[in-house]
């Protein structure tokens, strides 16, 4: 008959079945202290492989503190101390015998302000490779990283030029190239586009979408719309004022991004994403 059944293609709707996703980070009751001051309190979260996880929330809610715990950048702050358990692929990241340098190779980070070294474009990308002894096929590795960061076409004819001559957006993509050159498994992005104009921001966001195929990405952003656009999962951090008057960051809600932006479970999340606080 003429009414032949057709197959449906549920296009574009990424089905996020969490039970089938591998967990990369597992935080259990993670608190971070700077001296006696608790910056974040008892965060419990699972971060999944090859997804983009966004962390949003008001200033001072501990977003950056939290993301920095993921590759032990907090170690670099002398007064900082972490309690609870933070596991990376089942391994206690803060356990004895864990090499923080190796952690940071596997878990790369890109910061808010593009911070290329005052060296050539080539050397910026090759730097980490040389230090880690990944010198074999150096040219190929540099080219591959620049390709992955969607920068190759723009810089291939001037690899020897100073990286400082690049635009802000290009510098940020160079920093991403530098981070991925050493073949990490995770890329942490701390406000990667907040110093960039909308066009450069859009390039970074498209790039993140490309990188998701190979990497697990965690991004801190104070731009909610950016989280809405790029992230698969979104964590909303809020501020808790203790009876003693100190302010601590807490994880209020963590869910699929679509849920957070269409029907959040917590009224504090609703207040934040709609712009109606309190």
């Amino acid at each position: 008959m003429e009414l032949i059944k057709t197959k449906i293609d549920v296009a574009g709707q990424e089905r996020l079945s969490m039970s089938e996703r591998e967990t990369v980070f597992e935080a259990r009751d993670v608190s971070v202290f700077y001296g006696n001051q608790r910056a974040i309190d008892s965060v419990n979260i699972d971060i999944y492989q090859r997804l983009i996880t966004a962390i949003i929330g008001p200033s001072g809610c501990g977003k950056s503190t939290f993301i920095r715990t993921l590759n032990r950048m907090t170690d670099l702050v002398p007064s900082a101390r972490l309690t609870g358990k933070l596991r990376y692929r089942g391994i206690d990241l803060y356990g004895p015998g864990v090499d923080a340098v190796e952690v940071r190779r596997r878990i790369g980070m890109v910061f808010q302000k593009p911070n290329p070294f005052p060296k050539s474009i080539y050397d910026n990308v090759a730097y980490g490779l040389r230090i880690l002894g990944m010198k074999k096929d150096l040219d190929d590795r540099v080219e591959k990283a620049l390709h992955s960061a969607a920068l190759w076409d723009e810089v291939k004819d001037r690899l020897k030029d100073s990286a400082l001559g690049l635009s802000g957006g290009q510098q940020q993509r160079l920093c991403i190239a530098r981070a991925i050159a050493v073949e990490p498994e995770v890329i942490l992005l701390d406000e990667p586009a907040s110093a960039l104009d909308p066009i450069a921001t859009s390039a970074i966001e498209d790039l993140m979408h490309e990188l998701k195929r190979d990497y697990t990405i965690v991004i801190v952003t104070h731009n909610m719309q950016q989280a809405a656009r790029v992230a698969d999962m979104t964590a909303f951090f809020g501020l808790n004022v203790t009876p003693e008057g100190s302010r601590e960051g807490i994880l209020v809600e963590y869910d699929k991004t679509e849920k957070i932006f269409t029907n959040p479970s917590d009224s504090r999340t609703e207040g934040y994403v709609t712009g109606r606080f309190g």
Partner: protein
Amino acid sequence: MRDLYEVELEELESLLREEGELVDRAIRGALNALARNDLELVDELIAFDDEVDRRYLTIEQGIPSVLARQTPVASDLRLVLAILYINLHLERIADYCVTIAKLVKLAQGLPRDAGVLEALEEMGERGREMLSTGIAGFHSRSARNFEALVEMDRPIDRANRKLIDRLIALGPEEAQREWAMRMILVSRCFERIGDHAVDIGEQAAYLERGRFEEFTDASHKPPAK
């Protein structure tokens, strides 16, 4: 993220395109079931509605996601809103086809009248034409005269009047009266399909022109050309 956004919009529109094609097949199926008094086709048609509903639901769920995550503006916003409404209209048309199928089933064994069936076929075919005009205009973004849909609606009204005359003339027997009442409902379905097609045209025009106008309504005349 604009690349992904483009893809999302394209996917929503392509699902809508599929839904439109399915709905056209549903109308054709309803016409055939009616003309041939084909019970097998009736059942197939009722089941076929699930195919339409799956597209409908996927679009229905996709739209809040695009609105919340991509904050579309300008022509993108109009596109998303037009898809939202056209999706509803298509789903309703498919439901009318199911209703027609059920009425064919209920009219089994009753005496049929060729003239009435001819008028119903005329109405259904005009409805299909209107739907394809509205849908094609929407997908091609062509600056067409969507108000022509209102003109196309006229033969439906004419066929409807002819149909009523024929039905009244059928005679007083109970079986004939029952069949006539079933067919009145079928005609109502085809008429509504035409109305939904006009509404789809209104959405297509909205997308192109950036302002919404109702082509026609019982309370006012269509806008001057």
